[in-house]
Each structure stands twice: as structure tokens, then as C-alpha cells.
């Protein structure tokens, strides 16, 4: 393709819009990782459930899109908390602490992923469902003469910024946020300080799942909603989380945006046929030169 700055600009804008969605899902993965020290392999399914909840709230209940977004976040957060309380906590208790080391949690996460996909398949079927939402309240932006950014992309960018700002405020400027950070830092000391650690872990799970749901509802009008949508998003979000630095919340967003831009530019100027490779190529490059990720902290373990 012939190079021109307008196209480059367009690809970067589109990369950023999809990248912030990767970032939001990665944020959830990082939150759970910081809270429980586990990688949650069923997080893609929380994103998928969120998208379906949003779809049902808009199409069946008739809620306006912004309310459906909030509703889907709340419902998915409750679902995530229920899963954590019912399944994951048993594992942590069995280990005698608040976190689980080893394969138990990984296997449980994979199992939960398969179970949730099948539950969704049972409820909604395998067919893709169009997510028709009235987004007329959002302007369609035009850049550099002919680069049009549709309403759904503009909304994605706006909502993502709001969510990130809200999360930042919650974690940095509220007492509960402080408690969450304390739990993420050291659960035993947090417990000794009087913090209800299990409750905070549930809250972290709920927050993370709510963020995944927001990403699902945001992506729905762009790509339709289907049962298998979670897997690829999870992979991209993992890439984003690792690129940004696993466990780093700002890193997750920056990683997501980088993955989005990198894959869009790769698709545009190298080959669109292998678009999904670019995210993992970036991941490999980052791991080669900065294994802890861009904003990750290099931890040295004493022998």
C-alpha cells in the first residue's frame, strides 16, 4: 500500500480505539493478578457474558445504551463475585491462605472458561447476534478531510477514559481503594491491619469482571456478539498486560493501546492476513528486551 499520512493517522486512531478495549480487559486481568496472584483464564468469558448482558438489556429490556452498559457491568461483577465465592475461594481456603500457588487455579480457570462458554451456548446459542444500539447522542468525528471515526469508536474512547479515571480515583482517593491496594501489596499484613481481605478479594474480582463487561458492551456494536468472542480477546488482553507489565494497571492500558496500534499498522503495511500475529510479535519483542514489561517492576529473587 502506498504510504500517506492520512491513512497512517487513520490506522493509529483505529488502533487506539481497539487498543483501549484490550487495555480495559487487561486491566481486569492485572487487577485479579494483583489481588489473588493468579492469572484468570476465564476472564475472556466474563467479557463475553458482559456483552450478552448488555445485548439483552438493550434489545429485550429496552434500556438506553449507557444504562445497559452500567447494568451489564453490575450483573457481570455480581457473576464474577459469585464465581469467586463459590469456586475460587474454596481453592484458596484449601491452600490455607488467600492465594493459590501452582496448577490448581490455572486448571480451575480453564475449566471455568469451558463451563461458561457452554452455559452461554445453552442460553444464547452459537449464532452471532447483532448489537444494535442507538448511539446518535455521540457525534461521528471526521479527521483530515475523509477519515471518519464512527460513533461506536468515539464512544469506546470516551467510556474507556471515564472508566480509567474512575478506577484511578477509586484506588487512589478512597478508603476502600486504599484497602484494595493494601490487599494487593500484602494480604497477611492487610489482614493484621483489620482489613477484611476475603471481602476485598471479592471486590477486586467484581471490579475486574465489571471492566471486562464494559469492554464487551463497547465492542458489541462494532463486531456483533457471540459465544466464542472471549478467547481471542483474552489472548490480546494477556499480550497487552504482559507488554505493559503484568500487575501494573497503567501498564495494562498502555500495553493495550500499543497492541492495538501495532496490529493495525501491521495489518495495513505488512499483511492483513496474519493480523493476530502482530500482538504476539510485540509481546515477544518486549519480553526479549524488557521481560518485566514496559511499566513492570523488576523483582529479583534471592537464591
Amino acid at each position: 500500500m502506498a504510504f500517506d499520512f492520512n491513512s497512517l493517522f487513520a490506522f493509529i486512531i483505529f488502533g487506539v480505539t481497539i487498543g483501549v478495549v484490550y487495555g480495559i480487559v487487561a486491566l481486569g486481568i492485572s487487577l485479579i493478578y494483583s489481588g489473588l496472584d493468579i492469572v484468570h483464564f476465564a476472564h475472556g468469558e466474563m467479557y463475553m457474558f458482559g456483552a450478552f448482558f448488555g445485548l439483552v438489556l438493550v434489545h429485550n429490556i429496552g434500556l438506553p445504551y449507557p444504562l445497559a452498559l452500567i447494568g451489564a457491568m453490575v450483573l457481570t461483577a455480581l457473576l464474577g463475585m459469585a464465581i469467586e465465592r463459590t469456586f475460587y475461594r474454596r481453592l484458596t481456603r484449601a491452600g490455607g491462605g488467600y492465594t493459590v500457588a501452582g496448577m490448581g487455579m490455572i486448571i480451575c480457570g480453564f475449566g471455568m472458561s469451558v463451563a461458561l462458554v457452554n452455559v452461554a451456548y445453552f442460553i444464547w446459542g452459537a449464532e452471532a447476534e447483532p448489537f444494535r444500539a442507538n448511539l446518535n447522542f455521540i457525534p461521528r468525528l471526521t479527521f483530515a478531510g475523509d477519515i471518519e471515526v464512527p460513533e461506536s469508536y468515539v464512544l469506546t474512547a470516551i467510556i474507556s477514559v471515564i472508566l480509567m479515571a474512575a478506577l484511578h480515583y477509586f484506588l487512589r482517593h478512597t478508603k476502600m481503594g486504599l484497602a484494595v491496594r493494601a490487599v494487593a501489596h500484602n494480604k497477611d499484613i492487610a489482614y493484621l491491619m483489620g482489613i477484611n481481605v476475603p471481602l476485598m478479594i471479592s471486590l477486586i474480582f467484581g471490579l475486574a469482571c465489571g471492566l471486562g463487561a464494559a469492554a464487551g458492551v463497547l465492542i458489541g456494536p462494532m463486531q456483533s456478539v457471540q459465544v466464542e468472542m472471549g478467547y481471542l480477546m483474552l489472548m490480546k488482553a494477556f499480550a497487552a498486560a504482559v507488554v505493559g507489565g503484568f500487575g501494573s494497571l497503567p501498564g495494562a492500558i498502555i500495553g493495550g493501546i500499543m497492541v492495538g496500534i501495532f496490529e493495525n499498522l501491521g495489518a495495513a503495511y505488512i499483511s492483513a492476513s496474519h493480523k493476530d500475529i502482530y500482538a504476539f510479535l510485540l509481546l515477544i519483542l518486549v519480553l526479549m528486551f524488557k521481560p518485566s514489561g514496559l511499566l513492570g517492576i523488576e523483582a529479583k529473587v534471592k537464591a
Partner: protein
Amino acid sequence: MRLLNKTLVGAFTACVGFGAAAAYADDIRVGITMRMVSENGQAYGQMMMDEIKGINEAGGINGMMIKATLMNDECKSDKGVANANKLVFQEKVHLLIGSSCSSVTLPIVDVTAKAGVPQLVPHSTNSKITQKGSEWIFRIPVSGRYYGGVNAKYVGENIGTKIAYICAADAASVGDCANLEKQMKARFGVEPAYRADVQEKEVDFRAHMQKIKSMNVDGILVAALAETMARALVQSYEAGIGADVRRIGSSSASNAPVPKIAGDAAKGVFFAAAYAAADQRPIAKLFNEMVKSRYGIHAPDHDFSQAYDLVRIMEIALKNANLTGSLADDRTAIRDAIANVKGYQGLASGPISFCADATPQCRDGNRTAVLIGYTKGGEDFETEVIARVTMEEDFGLE
């Protein structure tokens, strides 16, 4: 004692073997493997079973009942091949029907060719399916090589020759892209203005659409499975590509999820298929009503019509086959009977005929494609018939 044991075991084995043979003796076993993951897929699978049940209730085939086994391959080649192996070697079917997706049918052709089992293809369009040289394969739908010719003629003469191609990686779409590209070059001497090979379930076409927009093309071919195509159509409008740039669909544009998911973006999309719900023939109207009342499908696409025609052709062939009770001989007799089906006129856009040679000319039964356009998208989509074209049997072959 040992002798007694051996005798008892031998007698038991013989009884089981005889019992199984007796159970099979009066049945004609038919195995079906198709994609049945969507509401439509489940409905046309059920429709085939209902039609077979109808044949049995009407007395069967020369007094023999058809025992059909329906399996879902989910459009996955590994599942399709596993289903085919199970049906051929365990169920010992006389006839195999499958599959919906070309990427599944292509490897199954090798299974049936090796085992010597006649195979009727209900939906797959990839032209290579009948070019493998198997003497056991028969295709009910229109081959992609004919679709390519019909599309190229209409596109070149009515829309323009500057065409962008978006080609998904599934076998049918790869074939549809290659056929149109080949025919556009042969007829009008043009190469694609832009070509992107995307993944089978691609979700994000924005980079392509942005590039296509800057090229001022006459049309965009979107060759992909239904849901992927619908997403591409929607995103083409989101990128600001106007309706004056015509959208050309591959044969899967006929599938109901395209207008359902694409909504308004489906309006104006045209494609070649084997059947149009807008067909005004009495047989088509009756069929539409039957599908709507029985299965609640608003407008049956060519996957339904082809499944229905397949059952009717199977019925004709089975009635004409001289079945003896020997599995190998019966399979051969059924194959020969299918090859003798000539000028079957059912729901398909044209007559379906087969012949004995293991060539695409003989085994691509339907050579008539109908060009269909969407006049309305959404759940209650509407279509119109633009043209009906019958191709020469050699068309599209080297």
C-alpha cells in the same frame, strides 16, 4: 470343557453377528454430517430428517426403511472427518451426505473415495471438491466455478472492473475469491484493485475499509462465511464507503445471518446462489410456506432448498438402485443410480443432472446460478432476483 467354551463363544459371536446383520438387512443406512450450529443449520438438519421420515411413512424405498444418522460437524474439518469415519466404518452407511462447509467436505471426499461410499454434497461450493477425481462424489449445489463466471459477467458489465477483494480463509470463500478473480481477468483483463486475505472469523476490517475507501473502487467483493461477511459489510459503511460502491457477496451471502446481522448494510448486496426465496414458481412458494410453518424460518435460503433437493434426489436414486444386501455392491449400485439422475427439476435454479465419469463436468450437478440482491436487511429481509444464468459444463476448468 475348553471345547464347550469355544463352541459357546463361537455360537454367541455368530448370534451377535447374525443379529446385527438382520437388524441392518432391511434398512438403507444414510449418514449425514453437516454444520448445525445456528438456528438455520438445526432447522435444515431437522427438515432432512423429517423428509426422510416422510419417505419411510409412505412405505420406504421399495419396502425398505431409510435409517438416517444425523451428526453435527460444526463446520470443523476434524469433526467432519471423525463423523465421516464413524458413519462409514462403524455405522456402515450405504450413503454419506455432507458437508455444509467446503473445508469439511474436501477431506471427507478422501474418506468416501477410500471406503467406496457414495457421497452427496448438500451445500459446499469449492470447485476442487469434484476435481479430486473421486468416482463417489456428487454435488447438489452450484460449483464455485460457475458462480465466479456469473458474478464476473454481471460485475464487469453493470458495475465496473475496479474491484476490491476481501477473502476469508475458509475453503468456500478462498474458492469464490479465486474464481471471480480468474474470471475478471479472463473476461476483462483486470487484476483486483485491492486484495486482502483475512482470517475465517475476522472481526475487524477497518484497516482494509480505510484503504479501499481511498481507492475509489467500483465494487467490493466480500467472500466470507455469513457472520464474518455481515461484520465486513457493516464496517464498510462505518468507514464511510457509500452505497454507490456495490457490495458483492460470496455464495454464503444467501445465509440468513447476513441480512440479520448486517441490517441496513445488507441492502444492495448481490450474490449468486442456487435458490431465491423471491422465486415466483409455485413449487418455491409452497416450499417457503412449508419451511416457515414447520420451522419458523422467515425466508429459506439455498441451504434449505439444496438440502430438500438432495433428499428428493436420494429418494429417486435409492428407488432405482438394485439393492442386493451386500454392502459393497449396494454402495456401488447407489452410486450408479445417482449418476443416472438426469434433469431433476426441483427447487434449484436449474435442472440437476449427473453422469458416470469422475469429472467435475459429470459431478457438478447444477449449472444454473441465480443472481440475487437484498432489497431490505434485518430480521424481515427481502430479496429480488436479478438474473438467472446457466453455464457450460466445462466453464471454469483449465
